[in-house]
Structure formats: structure tokens, C-alpha cells
């Protein structure tokens, strides 16, 4: 096996030097009846050539990966500068462990410190952690944290949050003694309905919203923050399209108490859903309630600046069952990719990408809405996603669009909402050219007509 440095002869010598004769004796502490008598039923070892051919073959069967696509809904196609993937592949980053020994981990530690700073700047918050698994689990952890901070057990969560995020929150809170109350969204605007806020009361730990929400509608975060604060609850804001930070008012500036986001938009490949990176930020006063790792600044005896994992007493390896979270391994390398992306793009680049997304989405929405039989389902301001109501069943329309026009036109909402057969969610980013948008529009028009007849 080429990954094992010692040759069979060297291993035989080492065995003898520790007083053994056969490799099997290494396992003498395992009762004989528990040891495998036959080899595992796994394929024979492959060479690089054979192995790559196999993965190329499976990749070729992922037809959606090769098409112009208007899919968003929690995972976004954005351009990633070439240096991002180059730099994260440096051995020193990608084959290092969690930076428990600061003297020989300053590269990782400094990068995380920069990541924490960038997350604070984008979200408008005071303090951010070193990352969570993804946006959905970050949201679930935010709900648990809100309960810790307020010592209240009711959490009011909007139905305009990504349905898979809602499912994850459900799973996480089912044993935590938290009562989840779901809020309706306004059928006209697609925003969290103001009149449903009556369920907020003095037992409410948090109001949880997403903005831009699952339907692409931007919530009135400031108004919702005021309502939450009026009953002493926290406002938790989740963002799935992190590029929107480049254009939209920061949740922190609108009064949010905890902001979580999916950071995949920052230069991270789609990779069929992961690995991505969860961003998690809050106010200074809640820093000791944060889940996960934190990097802080420190000095050595000579007064030289360095960085170190800090406030570790919150974490599971010290506080065990009383820890703020069970998270250990997080998404270090993906956080690094996001850091490199954000620093390369800079404030101007992030704003320009955001603006292009919004402009192209506005163009696409205008053109689609002008097609006979097509309307936009919601009226609220939007960023780069919007729901289209088609004159025919959306899933069938999108399937035809894929097979006949080679375009993935969006996400049929029937996947999550059986009462929305004709609705589909369209996402436009800076990677979608005008040509692609025009082809989408033409395809929708032609196929809707053909499906209707």
C-alpha cells in the first residue's frame, strides 16, 4: 500500500523488535471470536488511473452540474477567484489539526481571527465564532443559545425560513424542552406576517426569521427586532445567501441579537450540499454563551502578538454535559476559503457581486413576469431570488426545460409545499449571463405554451 511508508520487511523487523512474530498478534487483546476470519467484502484496490476513470464516470451522470442553472434555495453558484482553492490546498492549512498548540498553529489561528472579524463586519455584530457546520445547524444552535440567554423556553419561528432549516431546528430542540411556534407568512408579500406576531409574549426566548427569506422576500428586520425586544425576546436572523450582506442593511444595524448564515456563497463549491460553513455572530454581552470555538488575541512573554483558542471553558472538552454545544470539529478549511474569498474581493468586490446579483435578478424577474400566464408570487422587495407562478405545473415545466433546453430553471416549490404546484423559485447570480437569462425566459414561454395545449 503506497500510503504506508514501512515496507513489509521493515514491518516484520519492527514486529520482532517489540517481541512479536506475526501481525495477528498485535490484536491479541481482541477476543478471537470477535476477529474477522475472512477479508471484508470490498472491491480490490484500484490504481489512480482506474479510480479517476470511475469518478469521472459517476460525475458524468450528474447532468445538472453541466447546465446553466437558476437553482438557489440555500446553495448558490458564485464565482470563486482562482487563488481561493489554490491557497486552501497548501499542506500547512489543509493537513493541519485544530490549533491546540498555538506556537505551531499561528497560520490557522490568525486566519480564524480574520474570519471572525470579517463575519462581524458583514453581519454588523460584535463577536463571531470560528464557524459551525453550516447555516442550518448554526440556526439550530442559535435557538438553543437564545434559550440559555433568556432562560425562556418558547421560540417563535417564521414559516418563511428555509424548510430544511426548519426541519433541522425541529430535530435539535425536540429534547431541549423548547416549544416551537410557527409563524405564517403573508401570502401577498411573502414576508413574515405582522399580524401573526401576537404569539410573541413574555415567555418567548426568540423570534427567528430569515432574510432574504426562503421565497426571496426581504423581511423588515428592524420592525421585527422592535417587536421581539418589546417582549424581552431576542431576534435571531438567518441568512442563506451571504452575498446579500454586500447590499442589504446588516442585521446587526437592524437590531438583531444573533445572526447566523450559510457562508457557502463565499467562494465555496456547491459540492452537492457540503462541506459548507456556518457563520455565527452575536452581541458582546452574550459572548460567553456562544457555541463552538473562539480565537482571541494574546501576547507571549516577549510581548509579541499571537492568537490562541480562548474562552474554552464554554466547550464540551471542559464543561462536558454543561457545555454550550457539543460541537468540536467545525468547518475550519471552509472558513479559510471564505476568508480568502472575502479578502480577495474586498469591500468593493462583495458589494459589486451583490449588486450584479440583484440587478440580474431584477432583469430576469421583469422579463419572466411579462410572459403571458406568468406572474411573480410575492410583492416584497427581493435580493436575487423570487418565486414565479407558472400557468402550468412547475415540476413538469422545469423537467422539460432541462431536457429540451438544457437549463435548470429553478426549484419547483412542490418539493416542500404541496399546495404550490405551479410555483418555482428562481435564483440569479453574477455567474448567469444575460444570454442564459434570455434563454430561460424564451424556454419558459415556449414550453408553457406547449404544456398548456
Amino acid at each position, binding site marked *: 500500500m503506497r500510503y504506508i511508508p514501512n515496507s513489509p520487511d521493515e514491518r516484520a523487523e519492527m514486529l520482532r523488535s517489540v517481541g512479536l512474530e506475526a501481525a495477528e498478534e498485535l490484536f491479541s487483546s481482541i477476543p478471537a471470536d470477535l476477529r474477522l476470519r475472512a477479508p471484508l467484502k470490498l472491491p480490490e484496490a484500484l490504481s489512480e488511473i482506474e479510480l479517476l476513470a470511475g469518478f469521472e464516470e459517476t460525475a458524468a451522470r450528474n447532468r445538472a452540474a453541466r447546465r446553466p442553472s437558476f437553482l438557489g434555495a440555500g446553495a448558490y453558484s458564485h464565482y470563486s477567484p482562482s487563488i481561493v482553492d489554490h491557497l486552501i490546498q497548501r499542506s500547512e492549512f489543509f493537513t493541519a489539526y485544530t490549533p491546540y498548540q498555538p506556537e505551531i498553529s499561528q497560520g490557522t489561528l490568525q486566519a480564524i481571527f480574520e474570519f471572525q472579524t470579517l463575519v462581524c463586519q458583514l453581519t454588523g455584530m460584535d463577536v463571531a465564532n470560528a464557524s459551525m457546520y453550516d447555516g442550518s445547524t448554526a440556526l439550530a444552535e442559535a435557538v438553543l443559545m437564545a434559550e440559555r440567554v433568556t432562560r425562556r423556553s418558547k421560540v417563535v419561528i417564521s414559516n418563511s425560513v428555509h424548510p430544511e432549516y426548519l426541519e433541522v431546528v425541529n430535530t435539535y430542540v425536540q429534547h431541549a424542552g423548547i416549544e416551537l411556534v410557527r409563524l405564517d407568512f403573508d401570502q401577498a408579500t411573502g414576508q413574515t406576517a405582522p399580524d401573526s406576531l401576537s404569539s410573541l409574549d413574555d415567555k418567548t426566548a426568540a423570534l427567528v426569521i430569515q432574510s432574504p427569506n426562503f421565497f426571496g422576500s426581504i423581511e423588515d428586520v428592524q420592525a421585527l427586532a422592535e417587536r421581539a425586544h418589546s417582549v424581552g425576546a431576542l431576534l435571531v436572523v438567518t441568512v442563506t445567501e451571504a452575498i446579500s450582506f454586500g447590499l442589504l442593511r446588516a442585521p446587526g444595524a437592524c437590531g438583531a441579537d444573533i445572526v447566523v448564515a450559510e457562508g457557502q456563497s463565499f467562494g465555496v463549491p456547491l459540492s452537492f450540499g457540503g462541506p459548507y460553513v456556518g457563520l455565527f455572530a452575536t452581541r458582546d454581552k452574550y459572548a460567553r454563551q456562544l457555541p463552538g470555538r473562539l480565537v482571541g488575541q494574546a501576547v507571549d512573554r516577549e510581548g509579541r502578538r499571537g492568537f490562541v483558542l480562548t474562552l*474554552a*471553558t464554554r466547550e464540551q472538552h*471542559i*464543561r462536558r454535559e454543561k457545555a454550550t454545544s457539543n460541537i468540536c470539529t467545525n468547518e475550519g478549511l471552509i472558513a479559510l476559503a471564505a476568508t480568502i474569498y472575502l479578502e480577495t474581493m474586498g469591500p468593493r468586490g462583495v458589494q459589486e457581486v451583490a449588486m450584479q446579483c440583484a440587478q440580474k435578478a431584477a432583469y430576469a424577474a421583469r422579463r419572466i413576469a411579462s410572459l403571458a400566464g406568468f406572474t411573480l408570487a410575492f410583492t416584497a422587495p427581493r435580493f436575487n431570488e423570487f418565486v414565479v407562478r407558472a400557468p402550468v405545473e412547475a415540476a413538469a415545466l422545469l423537467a422539460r426545460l432541462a431536457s429540451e433546453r438544457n437549463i435548470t430553471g429553478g426549484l419547483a416549490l412542490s418539493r416542500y409545499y404541496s399546495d404550490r404546484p405551479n410555483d418555482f423559485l428562481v435564483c440569479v447570480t453574477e455567474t448567469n449571463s444575460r444570454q442564459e437569462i434570455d434563454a430561460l425566459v424564451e424556454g419558459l414561454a415556449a414550453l408553457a405554451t406547449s404544456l398548456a395545449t
Partner: protein
Amino acid sequence: MANVPEDLHYSKDHEWISVEGDVGTIGITDYAQNSLGDVVYVEVPKVGETFSAHESFGSVESVKAVSEIFTPVSGEVVEVNESLQDEPEKVNTDPYGDGWMIRIRMSNPGEVDSLLSAAEYEDFTKTESE
């Protein structure tokens, strides 16, 4: 050798209490701060909270450990040492002085009698460290 002032009462959880009228001032002992190492954070209760004897009223953190702190007597918290928020290191440098944690109005001052004297506490720490 840890410092154990004569005029204080001690608990087996390594807290000390000094009594003035019906108010007791509580902190952790020199022995405790020494075994804990550099104190980086002290969590204290709010004024007005009540605790019964041997109940945990807060915690003290070093870089890599957390210890709960227990009140040796029952009563209501009448004052907390706010300065520990900014300077938790006082628990290390002056555990019996500036490093005090809370003042409590005792609901049962007789509880003090069941605590350890300085000599008894000193013996206790010796057996514990063996």
C-alpha cells in the same frame, strides 16, 4: 504552603466566610485559587437571590477548568463584588481581601458553627492533597 487566616470560617468546598452581624462575606480560599490556577472569569449571582447552605451560587473559571462555588451558609445575597468582572485576577492575588465574591444576609447564622476552623481546614487540605 497555602495561607489560612485564623479569623475566618471554612467549608470543605474551599470557601471562606467572615461574619459581621448577620452578614457573611464569602470567597474562595488561597488553597482553592492555587489549585485552580489563573482565574479568568467569575460568575456571581444577582443581589436579591437566595441560596441555601452548600448550594452553588456561581462559578469560577481558569483557562482550562470551571469550578462551581458553594455558599457555606443560607441567606440572601446583599452585595456582589462587581470589580471581579474586570479584574478576576484579584481572586488569585488577594483571595481573602479584594477577591471576595458575595455578601449574604444569613437566614440561619447558626450554620457558621458547623464550619471548619482555620486549623481544621488546614488539616483538611493536607489530607486532600495527599
